[in-house]
């Protein structure tokens, strides 16, 4: 493979990082508020969102992004109502995705409206390509080879995608899935400590680890902020999907994934998602006023029926 113009490291992979200030003798403290986290994001950034469909999405952070003046975002996601909300609020310049779905309700009407209006630049990829792009970014290589996409319209409609020929005997032509490097990743986990250690106790960690490694900065919300002695331990260490050195900030937001599922704890709020889905077009202003433009998370929880109601939402039966 030939080095690209400017040399193999033109992308800055080996640029020495500036020395960090001495962290001193005190314990790391990465606690932040939701507003502080969103305050660190900038217009035009590429932002990855963890979770999958209507499951374990960092929705409290997404609502804060909707309230913020941020604009022109490139969003990378296994899309659910996170993508729909950002579309409805006009925040999305580019969407990098394999699908957008509310799981139990197959289609997200806000995404559909924006997609049909041609409101954003569309990087529609196979889900596996999204995974490989995040992995490549985490490995700091510019692409990973795959056969996924060959002979499909994914190559035709994403003309930036290139192919590469195997340098070995097979000489096979493969898709060079480009690294999807993120400025920031937003994830919702079950528990975390103030150092950024975390566990995801729901049945599927999805691709949150890849988002964390693909991002310059990863911000977590968690159901509970707990001491280090509680968050992990021998029994739960296998639920620790990525190391704390990936994490820049962590905020405690109980029910922070609502209306998506935060198993164990609460299922998908289908009733709420139906109301959200119906609030398309002119209806969005009312939805936004009722559920997004609120004083804080406590007000949000009250607006959706309170913690007791949310705790009673069972996991969907598939």
């Amino acid at each position, binding site marked *: 493979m030939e080095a690209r113009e400017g040399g193999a490291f033109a992308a800055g992979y080996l640029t020495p990082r500036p020395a960090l200030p001495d962290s001193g003798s005190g314990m790391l403290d990465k606690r932040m508020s939701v507003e502080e986290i969103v305050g660190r994001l900038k217009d035009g950034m590429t932002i990855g969102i963890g979770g999958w469909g209507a499951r374990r999405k960092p929705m409290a952070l997404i609502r804060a992004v909707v309230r913020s003046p941020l604009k022109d975002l490139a969003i990378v996601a296994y899309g659910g109502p996170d993508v729909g909300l950002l579309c409805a609020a006009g925040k999305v310049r580019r969407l990098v995705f394999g699908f957008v779905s509310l799981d139990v309700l197959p289609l997200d009407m806000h995404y559909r409206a924006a997609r049909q209006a041609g409101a954003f630049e569309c990087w529609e*990829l196979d889900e596996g390509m999204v995974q490989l792009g995040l992995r490549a970014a985490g490995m700091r290589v510019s692409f990973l080879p795959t056969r*996924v996409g*060959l*002979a*499909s*319209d994914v190559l035709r409609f994403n003309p930036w995608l290139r192919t590469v020929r195997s340098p070995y005997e097979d000489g096979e032509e493969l898709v060079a899935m480009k690294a999807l490097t993120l400025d920031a990743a937003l994830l919702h986990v079950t528990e975390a400590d103030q150092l950024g250690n975390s566990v995801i106790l729901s049945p599927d960690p999805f*691709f949150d680890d890849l988002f964390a490694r693909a991002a310059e900065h990863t911000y977590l919300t968690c159901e509970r902020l707990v001491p280090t002695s509680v968050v992990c331990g021998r029994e739960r260490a296998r639920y620790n999907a990525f190391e704390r050195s990936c994490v820049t900030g962590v905020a405690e937001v109980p029910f922070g994934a609502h209306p998506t599922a935060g198993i164990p704890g609460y299922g998908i709020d289908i009733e709420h998602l139906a109301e959200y889905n119906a609030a398309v077009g002119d209806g969005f202003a009312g939805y936004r006023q009722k559920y997004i433009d609120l004083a804080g998370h406590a007000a949000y929880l009250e607006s959706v029926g309170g913690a007791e109601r949310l705790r009673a939402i069972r996991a969907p039966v598939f």
Partner: protein
Amino acid sequence: MAGSNYTLAELCIVAAAEAWRHDGEVLASGIGPVPRMAASLAKLTINPALLMTDAEAFLVAKPVPLGRRQDGYEPLIEGWMPYARTFELLWRGRRHAMVGPVQVDCYGQSNISVVGDYRRPKAALLGVRGFPGNTYHHPNSMFVPTHTTRAFVAGEVDMVGGIGYNPARWPRGVMPPWLDLRLIVTELCVMDFRGPAHQIRVRSLHPGTSFEQVQDNTGFPLAIAEGLGETPAPTPEALMVLREVIDPNNVRAGVFKGRSAGERRA
């Protein structure tokens, strides 16, 4: 044969289960109620070696019934299959999925992404999901309930997500060895890709339908299987397993609303 003792949905599920008969130990993924019931039926009556999930993150040794389960129901979990691992498995080819595309063309190319112009679509649907990778790497079958020229389109589908046997898209004329489209089950018939050069071929007609009716509702010419016969009626055993074990809540009743008889000869 006056009046059937099975419904059209039951006929389709039993016919679709045949897709996994000779697959051995692969992951059977049925996406949507009919494919899922078909995969479950295949595991319970035809090919017990199949791997199957609970439609979330676990491998289950016995298919999970659809809809509401009895209190205290616990699936018999035999492994873990989160999404990340599903891709690792499928890229090795050890999977056979049955999916429900919105459009299919004469090459077997399929679409669940958009209908209409790609940039300003008439209808935005899900997105390509895993179709490009699935179709490249492992066998795929389809269930298309509504057999019309809007589903089985002339020309190419509006967005080729699932790839197929279109020579124009294989410039060197070599198609990958793993591109393996198997069955298409619809409300009218069962089709496969065993016509000349993978032409879609009618393999059996559901009772009460004719080849002409199928052809009239398809946007491209179909081949005919030698000795084209009727889709076999479900056996009593298959019906019992389907009704009592897989779908006690009768989810299948909602599949073909208002046109439910499996035997449609008047």
